[in-house]
């Protein structure tokens, strides 16, 4: 093959590549959707279902934590950011300085459940007790400090399972349970996803952890949570999250850059429709409005 032939074929190949690229761009709109691990299952279900609604729009969903989604929103690399906490003042300022204008949409509610091993005899935990277990100056390091004897946990040590510090679940639990100035204790096992927390607590009799209600399963126990010791406790469920009677219920957010327009607006409207909200309900979260699902 001489040089001219090689050059010619190169041009041909790159031309074909460009052609296919441009044709795929014109045919499909891709919405980048990233963030909260709590929301990722729902977001995926929405994206899958939306394919049947508008086949010209593809939604690319990925998880990684609320911090990931919000960072991507600030860096301008995502169309919709999912978050299980609201954006901090600092983050909004940073986003504005980079030319983004994040707008918050509440798409549902979640009960942040406190998970225990199924053999754990505890059935009620008050905020004060949770503070002793999770908080920096907390005095509960052994289950016997809470007056409990956990079968299978011979060392009696409380294994505190938390999340990585950019997680929205982490930030919300910190604010809601440990207080605005509160901080987590040293030596918590920081898991990289809600599912990892549940898996670890399920296998470890000494463990206690927290995650979204939707990650609960039959092999794990959810504690009933009381705002104050002595007061009646509330079990985490879709119903108690919906009416906000559960003390650590939290809104779930989607952030867009500026008021949503075009395909993104259509998608968000669809999420807030009965159909979208029923998918959220089916995944174990509380809808943002009253819906009737079949």
């Amino acid at each position, binding site marked *: 093959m001489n040089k001219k032939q090689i050059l010619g074929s190169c041009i041909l190949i790159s031309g074909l590549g460009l052609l296919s690229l441009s044709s795929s761009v014109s045919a499909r709109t891709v919405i980048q959707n990233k963030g909260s691990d709590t929301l990722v299952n729902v977001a995926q279900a929405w994206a899958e279902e939306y394919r049947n609604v508008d086949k010209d729009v593809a939604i690319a969903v990925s998880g990684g934590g609320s911090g990931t989604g919000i960072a991507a929103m600030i860096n301008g690399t995502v169309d919709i950011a999912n978050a299980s906490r609201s954006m901090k003042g600092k983050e909004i300022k940073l*986003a504005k300085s980079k030319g983004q204008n994040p707008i918050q949409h509440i798409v549902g509610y979640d009960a942040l459940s406190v998970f225990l091993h199924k053999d754990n005899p505890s059935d009620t935990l008050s905020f004060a007790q949770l503070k002793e277990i999770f908080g920096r100056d907390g005095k509960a390091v052994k289950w016997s400090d809470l007056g409990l004897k956990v079968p299978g946990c011979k060392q009696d040590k409380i*294994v505190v399972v938390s999340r990585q*510090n950019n997680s929205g679940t982490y930030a919300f639990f910190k604010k809601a349970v440990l207080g605005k100035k509160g901080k987590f204790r040293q030596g918590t096992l*920081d898991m990289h996803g809600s599912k990892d927390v549940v898996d*670890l607590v399920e296998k470890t009799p000494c463990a206690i952890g927290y995650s979204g209600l939707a990650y609960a399963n039959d092999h794990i126990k959810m504690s009933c949570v009381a705002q104050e010791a002595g007061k009646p406790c509330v079990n985490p469920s879709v119903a108690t999250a919906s009416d906000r009677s559960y003390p650590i219920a939290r809104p779930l957010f989607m952030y867009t850059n500026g008021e949503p327009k075009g395909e993104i607006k259509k998608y968000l409207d669809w999420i807030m429709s009965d159909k979208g909200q029923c998918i959220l309900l089916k995944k174990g979260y509380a809808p943002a409005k009253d819906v009737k699902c079949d």
Partner: protein
Amino acid sequence: MAKLESSSKQMDDLFDQRNMDWYFDKLVQMIVFISGISAIIFVVGIFVFVTVEGMGFLLEGFSFTEVFGSEYWEPSDEDDPEYGMLALIAGTASVTGLAMLIAIPFSLGAAIYIAEFSTGKTREYLKVLVELLAAIPSVVWGFIGLSIMNPLIIETFDVPVGLSVLNAGIILGLMAAPIMTSIAEDALKAVPDRYREAAEALGATRWQVIYKTVLPAAKNGLLGAILLGVGRGFGETMAVLMATGHSVNIPGSVFDSVRALTATIAAELGETAVGSEHYQVLFSIGIFLFLITFIINLTADLIVRGIKNQ
């Protein structure tokens, strides 16, 4: 005269051999030169990049007593972020230390056996296998730590969680051992045979030859091998991320979970806003790690070079 000049020009043209091959030769020379200096360009480039990204924090928010004196790592707190790296440094140091306790006897033993005792086929097989062991990806090691070592440690030692200094130390020790073995073996091979022959002529036993003659003679090379192993341990990320339990904590025993400096960058960097303080702090950890591994590798290199020049 004029005639002669023109003819010499003709001769020049005649002898000018600048055909395709000549240009090709030049091109290859240039490509090889660029590849040759690329390592320098990349190292300098990476160092400049890491420093520029992390500089903002080092110049403004940096407080020596906080970063190296506090164990509280809470970089995402809105009102009061804390950047104490003491626990992270303790985590990295404890895991690397334990790894070396495991890897040094293993790798020196293996190197002595391969270099001094084994012969023929056994030796060839061993060398290939050691190199194969060095080629196992670190995420596979991490996976072994997570799914095999974790339940094993829980059962054997009756502890609540098996992701700990012990787990990561063993994994990291096994990871560093093959490289240390190869380098240590080279160092032992570099000891001239006349040393061994002289010792044997004096009536020394096999062990005495190794212990009294070969090991002291190869001392620098062996030290270099160990230091390279330490550097490997310090910089390892994936396996450590998976096997330590990822818990900010100054360990009191080998069964405590810890978190390493490298794992912190890996876990948090993708999720911070570019240019934020948290982002800059992670880059300053990068500078710190870069400096430490650079010093360790440089020392190892100087020591190894030292024996060659003797």
